[in-house]
């Protein structure tokens, strides 16, 4: 099933939670969702017989200066088709439901998104920094991030 059919299937199932379809002229397309309904959509995507998305490929948080987006890439081994979900969160307090109970691999991806971009995933088993040390301030991949001049005694310039 190509992304367009998936979009129509989800549209009739969830109605306004799924934004309308925009065909990008270059690169991959994606389904825009609102953050509230993300968890239910994902459960459906995994369990529905026509979709069977059993593999969460990638969770990436993108900082578009006025908002933060979370993009989920999915793949199905049985039906060999892929899909990309996009969720927009506001920049001051990015909050979205965690998918670690739907796909266990999301656990580490979400911890990395929290570590790098500061996106908080609710009811995540243990959400804290995965790559940077525990006491590191700031989220490096935000556009307005300033690298610290010095960290526990070692200067950076």
């Amino acid at each position: 099933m190509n992304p367009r059919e998936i979009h129509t299937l989800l549209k009739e199932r969830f109605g306004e939670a799924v934004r309308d379809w925009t065909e990008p002229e270059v690169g991959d397309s994606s389904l825009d969702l609102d953050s509230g309904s993300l968890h239910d959509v994902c459960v459906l995507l995994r369990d529905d017989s026509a979709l069977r998305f059993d593999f969460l490929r990638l969770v990436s948080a993108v900082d578009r200066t006025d908002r933060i987006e979370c993009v989920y890439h999915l793949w199905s081994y049985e039906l060999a088709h892929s899909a990309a979900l996009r969720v927009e969160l506001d920049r001051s307090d990015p909050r979205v439901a965690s998918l670690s109970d739907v796909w266990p691999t999301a656990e580490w991806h979400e911890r990395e998104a929290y570590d790098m971009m500061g996106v908080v995933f609710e009811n995540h088993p243990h959400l804290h920094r995965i790559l940077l040390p525990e006491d590191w301030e700031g989220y490096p991949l935000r556009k307005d991030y300033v690298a610290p001049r010095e960290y526990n005694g070692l200067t950076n310039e």
Partner: protein
Amino acid sequence: MSEANVTETAPPASRRDSLRTEEMLLNMGPQHPSTHGVLRLVVRTDGEMVRESWPQIGFLHRCFEKIAESLPYAQALPYADRMDYLGSVNNGLAFCLGVEKLGAIEVSERAAHLRVIAAELNRIASHLIAFGTYALDLGAFTPFIYGFREREMAVSILEKLSGGRLLYHYPRIGGVANDLTPEIASDIRAFLVQMRKVWPEYNALLSDNQIFVKRTANVGVVTREQAIAWGFTGPCLRASGVRFDLRKDQPYSLYERFAFDVPIGEGTKGTTGDCWDRYWVRMVEILESCRIVEQALDGIPEGPVLTKVPRVLKLPKGEVYVPCENPRGELGFYIVSDGDPKALRIKSRGPSFCNLSIVNEICRDVLLADVVAILGSIDIVLGEVDR
């Protein structure tokens, strides 16, 4: 679990008999002979039995994604090589394919063939290191040295081709750096002959060795559902019985032209998806890669090697994700561009990052020696885990 709240759990009441036994927190710390680099594995053990383990990563976090955002595409390419330093041609290839797909840049057939040859030679070299370090983890030092002997031949070929011994910077946006000379072609054929001659010896020395089989069969079994749920990709996924290879299912760079088959784990020495299967899938993949290199070398057409790319490359607005088959699994760059010479965001999916996340799941109630065997069989590279 962060360092702070890893508390010492008191043993359950049932075991407070006279002989007070206590569980120990063991630090297979960032410097440990068998953690393949700087991975810290905090292990809660009860005697030799491991109850729980928390891998702690980030000791080699080199800010790749921040650098990739602040440099133009051509200058960010060498940093992609340094992510998985054992399969650096495949990293550069994935990065270039992403940029070329977004910028609709054409690549000549000869360049595509050269990319396939370099990528497969790099895969053989990486699998030889995986074979060597896995033997080293289980205590056999000699296969490690034999693996490096063949690897030196492959590396000297790639050095003639690209100029570097380990980080090749060979695929460029729009083609490859240098062209193939007949002398390098004959070296490649000689290497393929030697590799096929030595392969049965490796099996005699290690794969069929009863001690090795006893140490790896039925150890760290990952079922098919578990592998898919935890995001396993590459040889580890195929060892659990899922016949999925990106070079076959989502072909890129002319891979559909070459005939090769995808080995999967059948549980010959134990159950499907155990350490032995992960090791065996890698060994058979070495032979498959030899076949691919041979076919690519025979069918290489004439033509230019590097198409003209504007010095200041501006990609159109949009995003793309092109997954490639790295020796450790699916590696892809999710490139989001806003139309200016620097990317808005480049997110890299490291296969070892996902393969490593299953360690806590399967290292439960196993012996300490088995934790080492499981970690070695997953074959992680820390540059890719921490990026």
